[in-house]
């Protein structure tokens, strides 16, 4: 597998380490249902067979966290974004809505 890091270009698999599902985000710790929400966030997985969004870390490179869209059946990677950009978009859209 080779991942195109937005900062470093296409690099071999062994430069990266894997965390997991990028479709979930850390819940609001102040919410009334925080205990449930954190349980779901930390433990339950959709574990999809197909294209998934995942967090990868460019450990042996620029230390960027990446959101990688990858098919778990074929390992084919269709998209790579810097996680910080995705996260900023998420934060801005939430604050914008508020």
């Amino acid at each position, binding site marked *: *597998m080779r991942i195109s890091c937005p900062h470093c270009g296409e690099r071999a698999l062994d430069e990266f380490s894997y965390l997991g599902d990028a479709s979930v985000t850390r819940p609001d710790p102040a919410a009334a249902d925080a205990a449930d929400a954190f349980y779901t966030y930390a433990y339950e997985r959709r574990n999809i067979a197909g294209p998934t969004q995942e967090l990868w870390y460019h450990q042996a490179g620029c230390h960027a966290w990446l959101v990688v869209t990858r098919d778990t059946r*074929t390992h084919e990677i269709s998209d790579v974004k810097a996680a910080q950009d995705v996260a900023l978009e998420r934060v801005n859209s939430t604050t914008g809505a508020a």
Partner: protein
Amino acid sequence: MTSENQAFRLAGRGVVDRSKTFSFTFDGIPYEGFAGDTLASALLANGVHLVGRSFKYHRPRGILTSGSEDPSALVELRTGARREPNTKATVTELYDGLEATSQNRFPSLRFDFLAVNSLLSPVFSAGFYYKTFMWPASFWEKLYEPMIRRAAGLGRAAMEEDPDSYDKANAFCDVLVVGSGAAGLMAAISAARSGARVILADESFAFGGRLLAENRTIDGINSAAWVKAAIGELSSLSNVRLLPRTTIFGAYDGGTYGAVERVADHLVKPAPGQPRQRLWRIVAKRTIVAQGATERPIVFGNNDRPGVMLASAARSYINRYGVAPGRTAVVFSSNDDGAATINDLANAGISVAALVDARPALPDAITARAEALGARIFAGGVVSDAIGGSRVKGACIIDASGATHTLSCDLIIVSGGFNPNMQMTTHLGGRPQWRDDLAAFVPGAMPKGMTAAGAANGSFSLASCLAEGARAGSAAAADVGFDAKPIAIPASDEESNGISAFWHVDRAKHKAFVDLQNDVTAADVALAQREGFSAVEHLKRYTTLGMATDQGRTSSVNGLAILAQLTGKTIPATGITTARPPYSPVSLGALAGEHRGKHFKPTRLTPSHNWAKEQGAVFVEAGLWLRALYFPKPFETDAQTTVIREVNGVRNGVGVCDVSTLGKVEVHGPDAGKFLDRLYINMMSTLAVGRARYGAMLREDGIMMDDGTAARFAEDRYFVTTTTVNAIKVVQHMELCKQWHWPDLDVQIVPSTDQWAQYAVAGPRARDLIARIVDKPFDVSNAAFPYMAVAELTALGGIKARLYRLSFSGELAYEIAVPARHGELLMRTLMEKGQDLGVIPYGTEALGVMRIEKGHVGGPELNGTTTAADVGLGKMASKKKDYIGRVLAERPGLTNPDRPRLAGFRPVDRAARLRSGAHFVGRNTEPVAANALGHMTSVAYSPSLGHWVGLGFLSGAETRMGEIIRAYDPVRGEDTLVEVVSPTFYDSEGARLRV
């Protein structure tokens, strides 16, 4: 001498170099061959056909093929530490001095004791093991299995360490061409001419594939000569890398291919500095699989006898190596290609006794030629059985009418058609497709960027190989942006490729083998089917068909064809087993490369490592680091004496310990405080500039992740430390928090473990020593620089430094850091300037003793299952803020008051020794799991107290203070009474820290 020796060498044929004669031995007998021979061709040149014994029945086995698919001709190559078991004679390049030995026989190849297994074969059917060896039950380990294991395996691994070295390399190309036959060469040429970066790899030492093995004409010249010209052009191009002796063994994701280059396997031993083999990781934008096809045998009686040979192999030995594989041949085929072998045999002066073809009608040209040669023709006939033991002596033929004929011969040439070598196209999950017209599987949908050309794609004629290769090469180059023009397709002579599917002679009288190496017969396939093992994978696993070192390249399709006949299903409906990497077996040495011995993993050394080495330090592995464990004096005979001296030296004077391996991270930015508040369980934003604070962080699941200190050098500038083992993990965690959880925080993280050399200076006289190190006018007095103060300053006369008043030992202590390049200077200076203070270096062992005396938790306590409260840090957790792990730490299982909590332990008998890993049980209870109360995590002999002390986790620790319990250690045969005490054994008020 050469000519008598090589009695089967043909004059004027082949591409071997007759000017270079090589001597070699097989089973100790000397022979000669030529440069360009394989071990198999050289043995055949000397009339040697019997080369091995089969796995189960120990039947004599010969040379079936001329390639990497051979199931039979396996030998032990070389001797001693370089012994290579199961080496295929058919691909072993001959070299002067080669030594080979037959394997899996006792006492000799000709007289093999275990051939008796053949007599027991009525019992030893497929799946036999599962039905027996059960009575009595206790006999399996004692008798049956040792017996089976004694008979297991083929060759013997070397007894000693492999003396050769291995290398790894990376390569990138636009077009990777796998195989250098007609299709591969045309593909490489057409891609290369466009300017694309091309890699052409072939598993043989000579490029050309079947073009060397066939007597064909291309563009008016002999095919071998045409190959020479093609390779000449390719090697003149700077954008082409030729990799002979290189097997592309696996396709991996993202266009990555694994390949092994046999750099020095054709030498007695590698030249100095030369690797034996090299692992290539090739990243290719496009790949053309042009690995040709493998001929399949026909399954008939005694078809495993030495002298039974594939037609394509016979042609290889004649045309490429100039060797006659026999004197009189019977040809048994089901297709034009096999039948046409009579031409090559005749050209080589081998008499053709008969042409037996399963097809009722043969092409006129073949019939005419056979007649001209005086061969008997059996159209619609079969060879039912080979006659002979360790060498074919004749063939039993059943003609179309059912009449039996027995002919003398020493060679039975077999061809059942061809299976494309498309294993690589399935490594990433592709499924092969069946083609009835070819009676073979061909590549199905292929991974992105991969195509197949020529025989590998089911295009068997030379003309189609040339054309398809050229097309594939230019298409691949064009695909990745090169201006690839179609190239001229050379003309080739004509051939016919008719085939009628034929697999198995069911009228055979003798055992008919499907898998020659694993001794799987047609009867075994039928038995498996009868017992319900009729899925192809069940068949394979039940009979071991296709699981030998050839991965079923000569047997799988025959096996499933026979199965299909039995079940009445078609072959495609029967299915096919999955080919897995490697394409052909790869030595483990090559896959490991240089990562073995001391170089298994990199070694990280601290800046003052050399100084410590000079002092005679004993080092210990701490992750990838080497750290000084202790510094023995010449008169000290055991580690304990040294460690006690070091601890006393610190507690009564001053000592220096290298703590450079601690993880170090700069955290900068206006939101740095806020950021650290969310990471640590305690507040960091309230930390005053110029101060440090101990902190703990949790994982999101509420379990302790790490501990360390945070120092604040400016409003927006923190410096935090982590434990040695967690340095990388904590940075990764911080980056995740910053980039993913809280991207809006204005904070930067700079890992700087390697940038700073850091030393703990500890003991009552630490201040005196530090005062001599830091530059004036910095004031190190307790008033000016109290406990937990930090400062940026200069030391050693202008060197940038950081000073922290931190203590792990429990004494008045500092940590001083300088840029890594000054680390050794700082260490030497501390030792020099502290000489009159009695300064000593101390290692991690003394450091550990002092931390246990103080009750500080370390690695054994932060084991990934303990909470902050478990390790006694519950009160540190802030209730005023959120932080990673807070919510899930409140789950009932983690807040249960019965959880084992940190406590201290001391032996009731003060002379007794404590041991980590002991489990606690009540004083008067049985030491069984149901009564377990916890376990000891860290122990040390405390020089300060004069007895052993321990830390551990104990259920109800708070209420058991003063209780006497058992520390039970059955694996070490110990059982010690201990008293439960506070984990802080030394200076529990901390008075010594603050002086």
